[in-house]
């Protein structure tokens, strides 16, 4: 008799306690200032998008900051830009590696201004276009651009060297890539406006990942949206189509950080890191993750060992 009452009461009590705890945790975001929650831990939350290269960059940021004594928290694999920009703005994350041109296109209402295409121009426009509360640190030389890529066979069959060459034959071809590519200006929308390229169909696959590569190699799609640092381009002798109109702008790797959370030390460390990053190195280390299947943490620390930042900047 007593044991059953005890059990029922115990369940009730623990449940009530947990419910209160959960309500407590749930109420924090509804409170006025998200940063008060972080103030308790004071850790910088670093996020990443849902593809390996961004995760590698985020892990590099995390490790280089930790080495300088900054406390960080990792929150990787979030999703597309549309999602993690929301996360940045509501305080779920504080810092994320971004790509200058794509970010500029995303935050510019009415599209990117016409005369902007070089890394410097893009960066300047970006500083102006960012909403309040977000800011960028110095950008790296390394770029990873969106691209339209075809197999060598397709390139030879239709005589393709640049995206402009696609215009007359696109109606016979199917393209594939990330789901968001279909609706972005730096995607099908801009391809139609700038190049007059309209494909017969578009297959939403993954974010420049193995599904897209496989579909391209199998012929399920003839044109794929891949990232220029992707090792599969070299491995499979794929052809990246040139972009004479600069639809896919300069895409320098740049840290995007919540203005409230940035400080001189973080800026100094990340800027010093960005100075070391070139496209060749990024491609090389990314291959270790994509092809050799090494863990992101291992590859990031290998990079930082091979490319130490200036001691003065580490503070």
């Amino acid at each position, binding site marked *: 008799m007593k044991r059953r009452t005890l059990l029922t009461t115990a369940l009730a009590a623990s449940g009530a306690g947990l419910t209160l705890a959960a309500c407590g945790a749930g109420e924090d975001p509804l409170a006025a200032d998200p940063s008060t929650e972080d103030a308790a831990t004071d850790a910088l939350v670093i996020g990443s998008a849902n593809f390996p290269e961004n995760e590698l960059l985020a892990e590099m940021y995390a490790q280089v900051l930790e080495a300088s004594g900054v406390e960080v928290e990792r929150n990787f694999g979030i999703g597309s830009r549309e999602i993690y920009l929301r996360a940045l703005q509501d305080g779920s994350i504080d810092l994320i590696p971004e790509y200058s041109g794509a970010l500029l296109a*995303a935050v510019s209402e009415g599209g990117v201004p016409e005369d902007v295409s070089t890394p410097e121009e893009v960066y300047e426009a970006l500083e102006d276009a960012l909403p309040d509360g977000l800011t960028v640190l110095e950008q790296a030389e390394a770029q990873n651009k969106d691209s339209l890529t075809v197999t060598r066979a397709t390139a030879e069959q239709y005589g393709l060297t640049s995206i402009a060459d696609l215009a007359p034959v696109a109606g016979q071809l199917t393209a594939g890539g990330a789901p968001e590519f279909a609706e972005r200006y730096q995607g099908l929308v801009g391809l139609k406006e700038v190049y007059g390229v309209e494909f017969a169909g578009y297959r939403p696959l993954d974010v420049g990942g193995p599904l897209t590569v496989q579909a391209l190699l199998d012929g399920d799609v003839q044109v794929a949206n891949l990232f220029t640092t992707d090792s599969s381009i070299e491995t499979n002798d794929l052809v990246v189509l040139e972009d004479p109109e600069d639809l896919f702008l300069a895409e320098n790797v740049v840290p995007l950080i919540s203005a409230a959370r940035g400080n001189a030390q973080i800026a100094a460390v990340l800027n010093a890191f960005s100075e070391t990053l070139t496209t060749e190195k990024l491609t090389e280390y990314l291959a270790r993750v994509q092809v050799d299947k090494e863990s992101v943490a291992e590859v990031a620390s290998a990079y930082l060992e091979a490319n130490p930042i200036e001691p003065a900047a580490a503070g």
Partner: protein
Amino acid sequence: MDPHGRTEGLTRVEDTPYLLDPARWSGPGSIPQLVLAHLGYTGLALLAGVLIAFPLGLLIGHTGRGAWLAINAGNAGRALPTLGLLMLLVTLMGLGVLPVLIALVVLVVPPILTSTYAGLRSVDRAAVDAARGMGMRPLQVLFGVEVPMALPVLFSGLRAAALQVVATATVAAAVGLGGLGRLLIDGLAVNDYGRVVAGAVVVAVLAIALDVLLALVQRAVVSPGLTGRRSRRTRGRRRPDTPAQSRLDADLA
């Protein structure tokens, strides 16, 4: 840009709600096309699952051997993460419909197996004995008496499985295929909350419609003598005909 909406700051704003926009109802990637693909995955998975699990359940329920398989299949099957299985299959087999079908069939088999077994077990022994006494052969007893009497439990298992498959078939979109999951995944990718909700609504409606359909089939197929529809005299205990009850009966056995 997109005639259906625009980007305001960082969020996509649709001009008309997704389901009411006529352009979404025709052409490639349209809602009817997604529904058809979704029903295709669901139907094929249910068919294949029943073909595998029903005979197996009959065998186990009739002979009484291998009961541990029928009882524990339910738990193990529920524990297997379909998304993970699907991603593993695609990684090993490549892109295509087959990995999706295999993953969904793995989802369907346990509840059908468990409910077939539980249904046979729930049949009144007296009826089986009477049938044998009348001279019916074993197969005649099985299909003439046991299966018809087990139908309510069988159907509740089938309906539970159908519900699960319709909701889970949305994962096909995570590996580049079609179906209503496209609304969820693509909506998520472009931060279009309206599209995600539209996807959820259509899936829920589809699931309910399928359940109603199966309920009608159940009504037509199950003997009225079992459901006690005509006898108003008997109050109190009712036959187990909810999926929860049949699942639990099997779990507790």
